């Protein structure tokens, strides 16, 4: 509860600070607010409190809240020199990001469909706006409108799903829904099943799983890079937490029913994400496809439900989030200097900017899943989970896709280190350095000694 309140209040304060043109104070205020929220998160650890029967801040919720808050914090640090040059509505942007974060906190800790719905929509509406904040930029416009239209469309399905489940169970409460499933395991209302499927569709859309992923590449590419960072990391993590809370929790008794379509979705997602990413010439778009493929890996945790599923998602999401933040941070730097986000603009980056290039290399290795990085541990846990029920073919398929992944992740490594380029020297602001170092440190620590996070939930 405190977390949401803190974040909301921070948002208001920032909004008002913007009103009073206190531009310099925005970032410190935000950071203080987020750190406070983080403090509350840690403070509530093991509390497992239920708020108004609507929110449950169990460790699952807190852990994901923590990741979301830290991720957002890092992204805020990346705002240095980012918005200021283009606009003087920085305070509004900050506010919207914070609102979105508040929505995500709701998504990771809901106990009632209403909370899920409200949280999801707070987040989505904020993102629709954030995607379009480059008002004069066609790409940004397009991204915003596409996201909005498709997002609203998918919300319809999500709502239909919620309605059907309500119709079947007479309640929006997750526990009651689960109790309904357990009590009536022989006579579940036939409208419950389509309800589950429709909710799955709605959530798949939010996390960008095929065939509901189509918005992802376009929106990621068109949005301002920083917003893309936010969308592809924190937002995605929250989406998965919501997905997991529902399906690994309430709908778990129906696992046999929804696992088959989910498997199809996983395979499609992996295949389309990886294979399409292969041919991309644009780093940002490649990252968008890569985020699709990571959605596929993350969904592995739902294919075999175990006590570890939730924690596995946490590890994977953490690995993915921090690696992606590095990638996008470097992308922002490169784009600021070269004006392009194609692979070519990374050529020869390693010569003049070893720190940046090294960070990006670590990030790419982690995304590709090379041992000693967090990404490997994440993938390993996913494979381990699925192998637990000997879904070997699925794992083999995922491995083949991971191989394709190596190709495109290494493209940028190749460009940075092995190709000759313009030898540009990036101007890396201090905050970027902090973000890079922190993210690299987290990536490596989780990769080498993941024990610290393995039993968190």
């Amino acid at each position, binding site marked *: 509860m405190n977390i*949401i309140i803190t974040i*909301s209040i921070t948002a208001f304060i920032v*909004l008002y600070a913007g009103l009073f043109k206190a531009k310099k104070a925005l970032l410190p205020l935000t950071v203080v607010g987020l750190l406070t929220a983080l403090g509350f998160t840690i403070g509530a650890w093991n509390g497992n409190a239920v*708020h*108004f*029967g*609507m*929110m449950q801040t169990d460790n699952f919720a807190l852990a994901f809240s923590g990741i979301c808050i830290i991720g957002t914090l890092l992204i805020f640090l990346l705002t240095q020199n980012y918005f200021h040059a*283009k*606009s*003087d*509505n920085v305070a*509004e942007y900050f*506010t*919207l990001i914070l*609102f*979105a974060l*508040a*929505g995500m906190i*709701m998504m990771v800790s809901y106990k*009632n469909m*209403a*909370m899920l*719905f*409200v*949280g999801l*929509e*707070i987040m989505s*509406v*904020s993102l*629709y*706006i954030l995607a*379009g*904040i*480059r*008002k*004069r930029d066609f790409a940004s416009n397009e991204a915003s409108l596409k996201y909005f239209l498709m997002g609203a469309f998918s919300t319809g399905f999500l709502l239909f799903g919620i309605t*059907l489940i309500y119709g079947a169970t007479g309640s929006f409460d997750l526990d009651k829904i689960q109790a309904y499933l357990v009590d009536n395991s022989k006579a579940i*209302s*036939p*409208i419950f*099943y*389509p309800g589950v*499927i429709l909710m799955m569709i709605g959530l798949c859309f939010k996390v960008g799983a095929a065939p509901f992923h189509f918005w992802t590449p376009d929106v990621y590419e068109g949005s301002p890079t920083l917003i893309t960072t936010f969308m592809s990391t924190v937002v995605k993590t929250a989406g998965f937490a919501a997905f997991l809370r529902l399906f690994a929790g309430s709908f778990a008794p129906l696992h046999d029913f929804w696992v088959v379509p989910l498997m199809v979705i996983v395979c499609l997602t992996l295949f389309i994400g990886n294979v399409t990413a292969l041919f991309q010439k644009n780093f940002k778009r490649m990252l968008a496809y890569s985020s699709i493929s990571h959605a596929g890996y993350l969904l592995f945790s739902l294919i075999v439900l175990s006590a570890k599923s939730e924690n596995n998602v946490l590890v994977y999401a953490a690995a993915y989030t921090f690696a992606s933040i590095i990638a996008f941070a470097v992308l922002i730097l490169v784009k600021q200097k070269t004006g392009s986000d194609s692979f070519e603009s990374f050529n020869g980056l390693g010569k003049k900017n070893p720190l940046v290039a090294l960070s990006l290399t670590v990030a790419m290795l982690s995304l590709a899943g090379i041992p000693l990085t967090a990404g490997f541990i994440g993938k390993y846990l996913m494979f381990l989970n699925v192998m637990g029920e000997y879904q070997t073919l699925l794992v083999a398929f995922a491995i083949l896709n991971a191989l394709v992944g190596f190709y495109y992740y290494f493209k940028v490594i190749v460009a940075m280190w092995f190709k000759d380029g313009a030898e540009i020297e990036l101007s890396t602001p201090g905050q970027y350095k902090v973000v890079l170092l922190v993210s690299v440190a987290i990536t490596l620590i989780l990769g080498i000694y993941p024990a610290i996070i393995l039993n968190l939930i």
Partner: protein
Amino acid sequence: MSTQVFYFVATLSIIFSLMVIFAKNPIHSVLYLILTFFTFTVHYVLLNAQFLAVVNFIVYMGAIMVLFLFVLMLLNLNNETEPSKSPLIKIVGVIAGCCLVVTLVGSFKAASINSPLILKNQGLGLVENLGKELFGPFLLPFELSSLLLLAAMVGAVLLSKKDEVEA
């Protein structure tokens, strides 16, 4: 006899909603949509959900649709210039829709849920009842939906106002 009212209104709902999507002129679409919403209001009344009926009438027909209309007028889109999609896409779209409705209804196995709708509590849809519910168990989402509205407000302002720096 009065069950016939439901079927009559339902038929109207369907017809009007079809008109919404098939009207060439967006303005007409909006107007048909208002009609559709009106039929919905009737449905709410039939279900004795008076509060919703009122809210639907005010918010949807009064506010939202007026906003639509306003924007259409603002953008001067009252003509029928929208280049329509090729007939093929339309046909495919309709077929896809039909498939959707068939599978949707089919997957409900709705035929099995044929218990008649009985209003057990006359006051269910009244403001009092709903208010208790809304400010009782659903207080938190209610409060938090203020964030939603605020975000939308900020966003709408942000997007609509002319940006000096960029201009």
